[in-house]
C-alpha cells in the first residue's frame, strides 16, 4: 500500500514537472528545504552530550530564558520561521523539551516583529537567502574535516544553507504569482474585508514562505494608499498565521516532538490572530495611542503597521505564555506518538510474584522469549529468517546466494523486540529481589546475566552490521568470502544451539555438547585470524580491510560466546542434567588443550 502510494506521488510529481517549470522549482525548493532540516538535525546530534546541551540547558532552563533565546535568535536571523525550523531540529535531536521549544516560539514571534520596524523604518529587507551560498561552502568544508564537532558545525551550516536555498527556490518559483497579487485591486471594507485579507495574508505567506515578504508588500501597498489601513492590519494578522507553515513543512521530517512544536506554533499564532480579529478596533485605538507616544506621525501608516505587528504579538504572549504547560498537555493529547508494535512481556504477571519458584520460572520463560527475539534480530541482520535455522538447507548457500541489499534496522528491532521485555525483566527481578532466600536470588542473578549476554550479543551484531553491509558487495572476492564466513559461522552457531536445546529434551548429553560448542568458538576465532593474516600477507586484501575483518571477527567471537552463555543458563535449568554428566565435562584448560591440539594438526 505504502509503495503504491509512493508510486502515485512520483507519477503526479513527474506530471507536474512536465506541466510547469514553476512547480518543478517549488518542489525542488521543498526538497532542498527538507534536506536542510535533516542536515541540521545531524549537525545538532554531533553536539549532544557536550557544549550545545550545556548552552541550551543554561539558556532555556526557564520559560523566560527560552523566550529570550527565541527573541534574540529571531531578531538576529530576521525570520521566525527559520527559528522555529531550528527549534524543531533541536527538539527532534532531543536537545530541548517541548516547554522550552514553545518558549522559544513565543520569543521568536516577538523577535520577528523587529523586521517590520526595519522594513517600515529603514525600508530595509534582510534577504536571508544571500547567506545560503557561503554557508554551504563553509559547511561542506567543515564536513570534510576529521573532528566530530567540526563535522557537526559543517552539517549545521550546510543545513542552514540548504534551508535558505530551499526558501530562495520557492520564492523564485513563485515570482510570477507574486506579481499577480496586486493588492490595490482587492480593497474591501468591514468584517468581510477583514476576513478576506487575513486569508490573503495567510495564503501569500504560505506561497512566498516568508512573512517578511508579505509585510513588505503590505507596508508598500499601505504607504502608497493601494489598500486601506484596516485591510493592511488583516494582512499582517494573516502573515503571522501563514508563517507557521515553514515549521509545519519542517516537521514532516521531524519526530513527534518536532510535530508538536509545529502544532504549538500554529496554535499560538492562530489563537492570537483570532483574538486580535475579535478586538481589532481596540487594537487599532491602542496602536494610535502608542504611535502618538512614540512620536509616529498619524499619516505614517507603515510605522503604525509595525507597531500593530509588535503589539498583537505581544498580546498573544501576554495571553498564552502563562499557559505553556496546558498547551503541552493539549498537544500531547492530540498528537499522539505512534509506537511500533512493541513486544510485551508474556510471563511477568503480578501473580507470578507470589512464590519464589514461580518468580524464577517466569523470569526464565520471559528470558527465553527475549532469546527468541534476539535470535530473530541477529538472523535478520544477515538476511535470513528463523525458519531457515530449522530447514535442512545449507546456511552457507543461503548467505552466499543472497546478493540483495539487506537493510534491517537493528535499532528499530531492538526497540520493538528487546527493550520493553528486557526492561520488564530487570524491573521484575529488582522488585522481587528483596524478599527471597539465597537460592532464588542466585538463580535470578544468573538469569539477569543471561539477559545481559543477549543484549550484548545484539550490540555486537550492530557493530558488525556496518562492515558486513559494506563489504558483502565489495569488489574483492576474498573480502566477500570472509564476511560471508562470519555471517555463516554466527547463524550456524545459532542452529547448533537449537540442536543443543533439542538435545536437552531428548536427553542427548546436553551438558557435554556444550564443550564442543565452546571449543568450536575458540577454534573458529583462531582459524579466522590466521586466514586474515595470510590474506594480508599475500596482499589479497588491504591492511585496512584486514583490520576491519579482525575487529569484526572479534565481534563474531563475542556474539557466539554471549549467545552460548545465555543459552546455557536459560536451557540447562534442570538439576537432573548436572549429575554424572558433569564429571565428564571439560574445564577451560582442557578445552584450550583440545583447540591447540587441533590447531597443530
Amino acid at each position, binding site marked *: 500500500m505504502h509503495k503504491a502510494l509512493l508510486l502515485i506521488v512520483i507519477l503526479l510529481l513527474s506530471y507536474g514537472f512536465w506541466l510547469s517549470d514553476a512547480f518543478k522549482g517549488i518542489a525542488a525548493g521543498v526538497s532542498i528545504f527538507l534536506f536542510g532540516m535533516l542536515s541540521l538535525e545531524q549537525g545538532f546530534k554531533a553536539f549532544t552530550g557536550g557544549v550545545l546541551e550545556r548552552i541550551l540547558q543554561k539558556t532555556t532552563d526557564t520559560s523566560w530564558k527560552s523566550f529570550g533565546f527565541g527573541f534574540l535568535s529571531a531578531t538576529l536571523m530576521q525570520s521566525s520561521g527559520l527559528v522555529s525550523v531550528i527549534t524543531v531540529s533541536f527538539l527532534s535531536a532531543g536537545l530541548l523539551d517541548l516547554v522550552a521549544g514553545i518558549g522559544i516560539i513565543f520569543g521568536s514571534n516577538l523577535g520577528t516583529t523587529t523586521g517590520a520596524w526595519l522594513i517600515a523604518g529603514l525600508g530595509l529587507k534582510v534577504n536571508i537567502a544571500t547567506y545560503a551560498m557561503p554557508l554551504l561552502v563553509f559547511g561542506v568544508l567543515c564536513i570534510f574535516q576529521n573532528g566530530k564537532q567540526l563535522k557537526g558545525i559543517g552539517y549545521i551550516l550546510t543545513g542552514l544553507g540548504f534551508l535558505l536555498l530551499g526558501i530562495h527556490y520557492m520564492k523564485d518559483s513563485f515570482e510570477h504569482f507574486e506579481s499577480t497579487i496586486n493588492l490595490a485591486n482587492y480593497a474591501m471594507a468591514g468584517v468581510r474585508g477583514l476576513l478576506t485579507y487575513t486569508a490573503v495574508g495567510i495564503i501569500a505567506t504560505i506561497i512566498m514562505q516568508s512573512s517578511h515578504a508579505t509585510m513588505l508588500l503590505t507596508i508598500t501597498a499601505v504607504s502608497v494608499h493601494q489598500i486601506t489601513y484596516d485591510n493592511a492590519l488583516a494582512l499582517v494578522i494573516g502573515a503571522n498565521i501563514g508563517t507557521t507553515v515553514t515549521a509545519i513543512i519542517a516537521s514532516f521530517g521531524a519526530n513527534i516532538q518536532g510535530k508538536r512544536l509545529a502544532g504549538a506554533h500554529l496554535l499560538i499564532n492562530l489563537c492570537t490572530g483570532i483574538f486580535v480579529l475579535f478586538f481589532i478596533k481596540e487594537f487599532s485605538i491602542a496602536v494610535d495611542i502608542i504611535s502618538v507616544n512614540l512620536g509616529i506621525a498619524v499619516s505614517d501608516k507603515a510605522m503604525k503597521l509595525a507597531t500593530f505587528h509588535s503589539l498583537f504579538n505581544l498580546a498573544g504572549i501576554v495571553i498564552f505564555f502563562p499557559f505553556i504547560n496546558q498547551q503541552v498537555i493539549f498537544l500531547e493529547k492530540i498528537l499522539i506518538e505512534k509506537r511500533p508494535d512493541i513486544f510485551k512481556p508474556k510471563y511477568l504477571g503480578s501473580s507470578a510474584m507470589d512464590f519464589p519458584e514461580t518468580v524464577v520460572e517466569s523470569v526464565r520463560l520471559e528470558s527465553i522469549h527475549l532469546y527468541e527475539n534476539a535470535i530473530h534480530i541477529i538472523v535478520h541482520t544477515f538476511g535470513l529468517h528463523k525458519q531457515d535455522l530449522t530447514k535442512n538447507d545449507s546456511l552457507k548457500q543461503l548467505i552466499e546466494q543472497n546478493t540483495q541489499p539487506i537493510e534491517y534496522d537493528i535499532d528499530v528491532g531492538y526497540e520493538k523486540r528487546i527493550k520493553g521485555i528486557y526492561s520488564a525483566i530487570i524491573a521484575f527481578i529488582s522488585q522481587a529481589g528483596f524478599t527471597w532466600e539465597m537460592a532464588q536470588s542466585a538463580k535470578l542473578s544468573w538469569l539477569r546475566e543471561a539477559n545481559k549476554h543477549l543484549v550484548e550479543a545484539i550490540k555486537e551484531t550492530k557493530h558488525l552490521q556496518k562492515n558486513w553491509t559494506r563489504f558483502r558487495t565489495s569488489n574483492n572476492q576474498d573480502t566477500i568470502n570472509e564476511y560471508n564466513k562470519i555471517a555463516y559461522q554466527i547463524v550456524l552457531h545459532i542452529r547448533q544451539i537449537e540442536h543443543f536445546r533439542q538435545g536437552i529434551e531428548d536427553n542427548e*548429553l546436553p551438558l557435554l555438547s556444550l564443550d564442543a560448542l565452546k571449543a568450536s568458538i575458540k577454534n573458529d576465532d583462531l582459524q579466522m585470524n590466521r586466514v586474515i593474516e595470510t590474506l594480508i600477507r599475500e596482499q589479497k586484501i588491504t591492511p585496512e580491510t584486514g583490520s576491519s575483518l579482525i575487529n569484526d571477527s572479534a565481534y563474531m567471537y563475542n556474539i557466539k560466546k554471549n549467545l552460548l552463555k545465555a543459552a546455557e543458563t536459560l536451557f540447562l535449568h534442570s538439576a537432573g542434567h548436572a549429575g554424572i554428566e558433569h*564429571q565428564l565435562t571439560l574445564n577451560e584448560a582442557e578445552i584450550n588443550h583440545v583447540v591447540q591440539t587441533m590447531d597443530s594438526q
Partner: protein
Amino acid sequence: MRIEKLLHKLRAFFDGDNRKKRQHIEELKKILLKLKKKERKITHALQQTDDEYLKKHYQTELEIIRVQRKKGIEVLQQLKERKQGD
C-alpha cells in the same frame, strides 16, 4: 564357604552406599555408551559433508568426545577400584 560368599553378597545388596556406587557405575557406563554412539554419528556426518567449515567443526566435536570418553573411562576405573576395595 559358599554361605559366606552369599552373606557377603546379601550385605552388599542391602548396603545403601554400595548400591549408590553401583548405580553410579551403571549410569556412567550408559553415558559412555551414548558418547560412543554420538561419536559414530558425527564420524558419519563428517564423511558426508563437503563443507570445509563443518568438517572442522565435526573434527573438533570428535576430539572433545574423545577426551570426554577418556575422562569417563578413568572415572569408571576409579569407581570400580573403590568398589572392589570395599
